[in-house]
């Protein structure tokens, strides 16, 4: 399977995440769209690691495993990010009784 198809698929997933961030006002949905974008990047990294492995040939058996470990670390950081982010959203809900991000515009003044 050519790498182009994976690039297009990842771009499409990433754009769907961006459109979700731009069109929704629920803070939790926006957060989920960020996860979607992270997953698009992960998919592209794995596809490129397999491409690199194929191009490196038989002399380097571990070529491409760096990218898969990057994906692993992205997942680790995403798990930590979600726990803190959801705690912030819960705190925001307790203060404003809503998850609407438009209520946060008081940070302006």
């Amino acid at each position, binding site marked *: 399977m050519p790498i182009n198809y994976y690039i297009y698929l990842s771009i499409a997933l990433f754009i*769907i995440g961006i*459109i979700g961030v731009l069109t929704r006002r629920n803070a939790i949905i926006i957060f*989920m769209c960020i996860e979607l974008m992270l997953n698009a990047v992960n998919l592209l990294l794995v*596809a490129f690691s397999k491409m690199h492995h194929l191009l490196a040939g038989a002399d380097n058996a*571990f070529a491409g*495993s760096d990218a898969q470990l990057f994906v692993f670390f992205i997942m680790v950081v995403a798990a930590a990010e979600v726990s803190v982010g959801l705690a912030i959203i819960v705190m925001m809900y307790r203060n404003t009784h809503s998850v609407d991000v438009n209520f946060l515009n008081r940070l302006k003044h």
Partner: protein
Amino acid sequence: MSITQLLFWMLSIMTLFSAIMVIASKNPVYSVLWLIVTFFTISGHYILLNAQFLAVVNIIVYAGAIMVLFLFVIMLMNLNKDTEPQKSKWLKLAGAVAGGCLLLVLIAALRNTEANPTELMHGDIGLIQNLGKVLFNQYVVPFEISSVLFLSAMVGAVVIGKKE
């Protein structure tokens, strides 16, 4: 068309459809469920690329832990279709047009790239044995630092989440 190509196209269509349903659903609980479907299809892509370790970690960490956390928070806040804040039609249209423009630019920029093949269904760098060797030889320090990151995230979540 071979079976792997057929699997690729089916998984891609399912991924894109469920990703669109995530942002199109009015009810946040449905959005979470569609996002779980998306993560499962992305895990299917990982298995197709023979990255079994990442496929299993994706299911356990994302579909198992993170999405359950999202679902708990949504159910705790009792969000449903009626409480869902909506943007005006024009803002939604503007967001979709902006995203579509970015899609056009990215695809136009990458249209003439060289098409190297990826290997599907074989190659063993994605197996846990090989990844473990690299992880615990070259990436020991980041691995240990990520445990500190988890500890600080845990402390941060408790400090932010607790009442005054």
